């Protein structure tokens, strides 16, 4: 299946029963988001997949929390392995993976080591941004930066950008130097860097921004937002297609504002409650047998010539 474009089971008469079941499970749980000119519409993945031939795809993995061992998931290493197996089974292999932070649970070198070792199985480059769990060392993120900064020539606390297939990818850090009483923060130095980074891009260039904490106010009482995100988006408002991917809240939510589409993604480790649905945003223990349906990965396909990103959220239950 690896080299074949995604087809619905009916159209692809060549796939075996096992592959067919996998595709059906995938289509049944996936909702495909097409973002064009600021208008988002969702259709079932099975209806739209045949028409779209992606120039390339990439995957978002988030909140792997290697080192976590509480009731909400005593073995997040096992679920990370499952997530990676699911990515490797995708019909179209990703060009790379974006990890939107909280690689580790407590920023310990052995936790980063374990995560890196497992993520290596993907066989494609992994681009990181830090989560607040990755910057708990004495140097407030120095351990993270020493490990991951060189690959991307990261600036400041770890921000950088790169281009792939005509899309401009921007990695932002909103978890360092947070002020009491607030939420996520980028800081003026990073916002200025962003302004300079996009200054010479054509407005038709598709932009993908990724960070750990949400870059819009999902739920202020739990700090699920980034206080100075509006200052950053001032510099992106001239672009026709801006897609924002983040983790942190361990659940899928979406919002479209003008030409900007915001998406939070699932964790591979444990779920968190919906905004305000519990006394705190702490790890949520779901009934036995339901964990896989609240963990997952995200597949993003870039459609050639259209500036559209087709986003499919897939739970770990889809491959079980």
């Amino acid at each position, binding site marked *: 299946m690896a080299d074949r474009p995604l087809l619905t089971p009916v159209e692809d008469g060549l796939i075996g029963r096992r592959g067919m079941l996998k595709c059906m499970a995938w289509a049944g749980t996936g909702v495909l988001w097409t973002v064009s000119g600021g208008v988002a519409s969702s259709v079932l993945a099975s209806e739209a997949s045949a028409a779209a031939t992606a120039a390339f795809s990439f995957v978002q993995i988030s909140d792997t929390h290697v080192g976590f061992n509480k009731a*909400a998931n005593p073995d997040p290493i096992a679920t990370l392995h499952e997530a990676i197996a699911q990515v490797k089974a995708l019909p179209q292999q990703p060009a790379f993976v974006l990890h939107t932070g909280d690689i580790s649970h407590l920023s310990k070198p052995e936790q980063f080591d374990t995560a890196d070792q497992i993520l290596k199985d993907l066989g494609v480059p992994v681009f990181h941004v830090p989560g*607040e*769990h990755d910057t708990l060392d004495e140097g407030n993120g120095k351990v993270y930066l020493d490990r991951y900064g060189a690959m991307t020539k990261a600036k400041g606390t770890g921000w950088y950008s790169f281009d792939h297939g005509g899309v401009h990818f921007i990695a932002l850090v909103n978890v360092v130097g947070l002020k*009491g009483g607030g939420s996520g923060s980028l800081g003026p130095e990073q916002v200025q860097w962003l302004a300079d980074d996009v200054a010479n891009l054509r407005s038709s260039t598709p932009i993908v921004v990724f960070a750990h904490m949400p870059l819009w106010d999902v739920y202020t009482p*739990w*700090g699920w937002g980034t206080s100075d995100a509006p200052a950053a988006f001032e510099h992106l408002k001239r672009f026709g297609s801006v897609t924002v991917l983040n983790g942190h809240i361990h659940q899928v939510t979406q919002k479209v504002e003008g030409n900007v589409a915001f998406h939070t993604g699932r964790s591979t480790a444990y779920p968190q409650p919906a905004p305000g649905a519990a006394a*705190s*945003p*702490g790890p949520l223990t779901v009934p036995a047998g339901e964990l896989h349906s609240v963990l997952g990965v995200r597949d993003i396909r870039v459609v050639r010539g259209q500036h559209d990103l087709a986003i499919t959220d897939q739970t770990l239950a889809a491959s079980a």
Partner: protein
Amino acid sequence: MRFRLAAHYPYLIAGGLLVAAIGVAQAPAHAADAGFVAKIANFAFAPPTITVHAGGAVTWTNADDDPHTVYADNGAFKSQALDTGDSFTQTFANPGVYSYHCSLHPYMVGKVVVQR
């Protein structure tokens, strides 16, 4: 923030009574003492306002399944990441008001009022 103040109002009262009782019954704590016993639970510092005498200490213990830190707003003191069951003790030598937060979840805030 109105939501949080309302949620913690009972703690404010309870904390105040507890501090009053300790103030009457105890001599100033030694540096090695755990001092005032505070907890971190449900992503909140409890009680949110703690009053001790100069030279007194406060010990926070994390009861959550997520790590937290005790991080002075002005950087004067900070704990390491406190995993479930971990504690952090800070002694306050000088009078003043010390505001702090959790560096992972900065909406979690508290303060220590140190009296003469």
